[in-house]
């Protein structure tokens, strides 16, 4: 290291072999002879679980989608005569026979209303699909994090047991 170990070369120490004076920690479970084992191999990637990300279903983007849809739906509903404010009472006009232009206008309006209704249905389906996907992704994310924790647990357990066996067999020098 910069201010400590860089100034100490390999010759400065290490863990030298040699006799153990009184009062030192004995190395138990080692045969008197035998070459030391190679050091344990370590993993090239971290085995620790990553922190769980915030739920996608509760994200700002999905929330905004719901809010905008509610606003659009509310505006359309308020514009419809069934839910709109009552119209002022006026004297009815005498019945007239509709002309050609009025008939065409009525047909176009009917067709446009149908298309608009279908668009709303598709948008609603999309929002429900996004909801479903977000919940499914959150569920899979939680499972991945659980799996990462399991991998860490497996690595820890196997590593402990293996190292214990290696030390008992002579292990490090």
């Amino acid at each position, binding site marked *: *290291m*910069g*201010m*400590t*170990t*860089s*100034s*100490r*070369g*390999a010759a*400065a*120490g*290490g*863990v*030298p*072999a*040699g*006799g*153990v*004076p009184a*009062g*030192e*920690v*004995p*190395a*138990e*479970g*080692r045969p008197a002879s035998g070459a*030391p084992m190679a*050091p*344990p*191999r*370590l*993993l*090239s*990637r*971290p*085995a*620790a679980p990553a922190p769980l990300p915030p739920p996608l279903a509760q994200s700002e983007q999905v929330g905004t989608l719901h809010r905008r849809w509610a606003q659009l739906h509310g505006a359309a509903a308020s514009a419809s005569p069934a839910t709109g404010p009552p119209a002022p009472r006026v004297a009815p006009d005498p019945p007239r026979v509709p002309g050609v232009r009025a008939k065409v206008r009525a047909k176009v309006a009917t067709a446009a209303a149908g298309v608009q209704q279908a668009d709303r249905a598709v948008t609603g389906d999309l929002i429900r699909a996004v909801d479903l996907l977000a919940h499914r992704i959150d569920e899979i994310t939680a499972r991945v994090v659980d799996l990462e924790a399991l991998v*860490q647990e497996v*690595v*820890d357990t196997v*590593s*402990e047991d*293996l*190292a*214990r066996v*290696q*030390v008992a067999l002579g*292990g*490090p*020098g």
Partner: protein
Amino acid sequence: MTGSPGSPGVGPRRVAVLSADWGMPGSEAGFAARVLAGAASRLGPVDVFGPWDPGRRADGAFDPQGIGRPPPGRRWPPEGAPREQGPYRAVLVDGNDAHAVTLAASIAPRAPVLGIGGRTLAGMAACLDLLPTSGPVAGRIAVGLQVPVHVLASERPHLELGPVGDYLLVLSDRSPAASDPATPPEPVAWLVARHPRRHTVLVENGMASVWRSRSCLRRFGVHTRMDLWRLVAHARATVDLGPGPLFGRECVESVRYGVPVVVPVGSGAEGLAQAGAALRVDGTAALLDAVEALDEPATADRLRRAGAALDRWTGEPVLLVHRLAEALDNAGLSSRSPEPGWSS
């Protein structure tokens, strides 16, 4: 440097310091020489000599004097290069530097030579032990050393550690050329494999790596001494694979923070182990056992108590000055007389 007046009752004592490692970052010999020169400056004038171009150079509290550059492959210029500099009470040299002992005879022919740590070599009046040895040893005088640590390092752990609670700190012994970030030193590989549920923080070549579950979780830089102190102060224990040759500075710092230490047998931190403040291990298998032994609260407490008792040897500058004064007064009385004309 012209030293400040000494403590009441302690007369001025002029001391020469010969240090080839003076000012070298990371050198324990240079660090120890500087600390002892600082303590000596409280007792009298201190002249520092080193293997540089002749002349003085500004160096903060001291103006070390060069006595000539050494030839390639040597630490000091040839014998006879420096002339006698004047009466000295004693000459302090690096404990393992035989050439410096010879040069000391040129600079101050009649002054006793005191080694700073290390071994007592021929020509030395005594060696100054930087850590107390167990009982008085002939030719050695225990003076201790002030190893400063910052108390605020205990306030909060290193920011880059992340959500790491309890961890074992390992200081590497590999040189920058021999180190490989992907492969930790062999003892660390065994520690990580044997204790996969624990965090192990390896500090090597200015970088720290956090290991758990047989894998490296993250790396970050250890740029300052404060960074290292924070790592040391919050560790469960410190394993120093290669303590410094004289006293194991990082081991002493760890002990001063109340963190138990594990050191190799025969290392520079042997004094800590003799004082009961560190566990000695003679190999990787013993290292694994020692780390497990530290799980027992009684063992860790025993080490901490012994470490706290060492504080008067490693953390009290006033006591260091008094012990050094005593050493200067007593040193050489049995082997050499103080220089003529010297009054203390």
